[in-house]
């Protein structure tokens, strides 16, 4: 089972009207990997992530998650498959009518498996995991800061013990301090729980700190999927502008010692 890839994309084609966004995208993510999807604005990174979640369906090609096509099998099987991954949306997507504890406990309650005491216990644990005080439990999403929203959303994504975590712009809208702390948090959780992570990010700091592999989406296909060192060697205009511009040099120089 370990040999099977967690995510397998084969020949994905996506069209918006007449505009071709993806033209035969192939991507394989193995268990335990942290893959960062990068690419210019409008290159269809988030769309690819939405294909993997199953929110949109490609015009052609196949999305397989945990060794089976995403939309195969009975309704129950599909639902079980979906519960094996957690998603952190760009703006958190917390339910604004529910408070923090209800948001985190929501997937567990919907499952109708756990007792009230167990849910309260698990919610407390998940909040502790994302380093939030228990006193935040009664706050409403509107009362949270940007960083806290992301933490609560991460706690909710972790509620169903996922094996795969999908992050859309996990650090967008956070200041560098908070974004660093959030990246640390995701990395420590990834190690603790042995998660497979796919993230979309524009932030070079985030990529360097988290990703074991970087997949570059350019010219409507994946042009490279390799480790950071190998990616840096690559001769491609996107790598040039994204990683080697003076702005990109700063974090790389800083993390040089750590890696």
């Amino acid at each position, binding site marked *: *089972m370990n040999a099977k890839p967690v995510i397998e994309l084969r020949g994905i084609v996506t069209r918006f009207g007449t505009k071709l966004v993806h033209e035969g995208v192939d991507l394989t993510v193995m268990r335990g990997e942290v893959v960062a999807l990068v690419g210019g604005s409008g290159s269809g990174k988030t769309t690819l992530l939405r294909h993997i979640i199953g929110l949109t369906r490609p015009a052609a090609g196949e999305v397989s998650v945990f060794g089976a096509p995403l939309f195969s099998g009975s309704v129950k099987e599909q639902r*079980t498959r979906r*519960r*094996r991954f957690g998603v952190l949306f760009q703006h958190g997507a917390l339910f*604004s*009518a529910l*408070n923090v*504890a209800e948001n985190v406990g929501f997937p567990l309650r919907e*499952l109708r*498996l*756990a*007792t009230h*005491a*167990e849910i*309260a*216990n*698990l*919610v*407390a*644990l*998940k*909040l*502790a995991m994302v380093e939030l005080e*228990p*006193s935040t*439990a*009664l706050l*409403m*999403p*509107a009362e949270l800061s940007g960083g806290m929203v992301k933490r609560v959303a991460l706690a909710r994504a972790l509620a*169903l*013990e996922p094996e795969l975590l999908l992050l859309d712009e996990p650090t967008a809208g956070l200041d560098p301090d908070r974004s660093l702390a959030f990246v640390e948090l995701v990395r420590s959780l990834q190690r603790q*729980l042995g998660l497979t992570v796919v993230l979309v990010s524009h932030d070079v700091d985030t990529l360097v700190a988290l990703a074991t592999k970087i997949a570059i989406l350019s010219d409507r296909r994946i042009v490279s999927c390799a480790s950071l060192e190998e990616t840096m060697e690559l001769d491609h205009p996107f790598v040039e502008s994204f990683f080697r511009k003076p702005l990109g040099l700063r974090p790389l120089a800083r993390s040089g010692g750590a890696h």
Partner: protein
Amino acid sequence: MRSPTIAADPAMRLVRLQGDWTLRALTPHLDAFRVELAGRRDEVAWSLQDISRLDSFGAALLWHAWGKRWPASVEIGDELRAIIARIAENAETSLPRSPGFSALGAIIALGSALLAFRSHALGFIRLFGQLSLDLAYLARHPREWPLREISANVYKVGLKAMPVAALVGFLIGVVLSYLSALQLRAFGADLYIVNILGLGIIRELGPVLVSVLVAGRSGSAMTAQLGVMRVTEEIDALSAMGISRTIRLVLPKVIALTLAMPLLVLWTSAVALLGGMLSAWLQLDLGMAFFIERLPQVVPLANLFIGFGKGAVFGLMIALVACHFGLRTSPNTESLSANTTASVVSSITVVILVDALFAIATRSIGVPR
């Protein structure tokens, strides 16, 4: 994935847990496991050495089955012990609870309802005052009139509401005429159908009917639009550019609805009279030419002006209430839906109240005796 099992050995009084104790693996067996695990914490020895994977759900299941205490005798590896210990740690730090309902809570709820009413009244007056100030400002700076917005709003709330207003007006006219005709014929007073329809529709039914329609159609749209603009911070962006949100967003809506409503009232009343006229012709054999000829004789012109006046005031009220609730929306979906509902309910209530005031104020005008 190895399926989780509970191997109980009655002779040696040992319970051996095996396999994957994860949410996904446990799901199919959960009910049976709860029964088997419950209430035997200290009676038996536990062995957790054979558990291949344990996630926090599995750990919570065990911990709560054990009544939140470690059993007297348990064999467990350090790694699993740590996972359960984390659950145990958080089981003690209970989450704060929202307070339940009490007598004090009832008093607080009543008080906050009164305070909320006060704050609505103050906010409404403030909005009205701000609009008056804006009008004074625009009177001095005539180049800044938001004419385009006003015209766009007149189109949206007036012209686009015409088909539905006509449909409703026509049907109400037909029904009213049909019902009255049945009664009037019993008295042989067929001719008075013109008086009833003319007075009833032009003076009362037309303005109120259109108000209810417009409050549901345009009032809710205004509240929702302003509310969404609050949620997406568009209103803040306008303020940041130094553009007055009342001049740009509220005033055009208020002026447009105040202008469009009398015209809608005229249109709807006319169509409703047409419906009544048709029905009277079919039901009572009352000629249309006769109906039209008799209408101005029995319905004084003052009634038309009262209808116009009511339309303008009702339009003003609906737009003000809608904008008031729209601007009060806080940036979340719950508040948006609550405010839209409150907006429609309040504007219809306000219209009926103002209509009662009109009835008292104009009781001696335009009613033939």
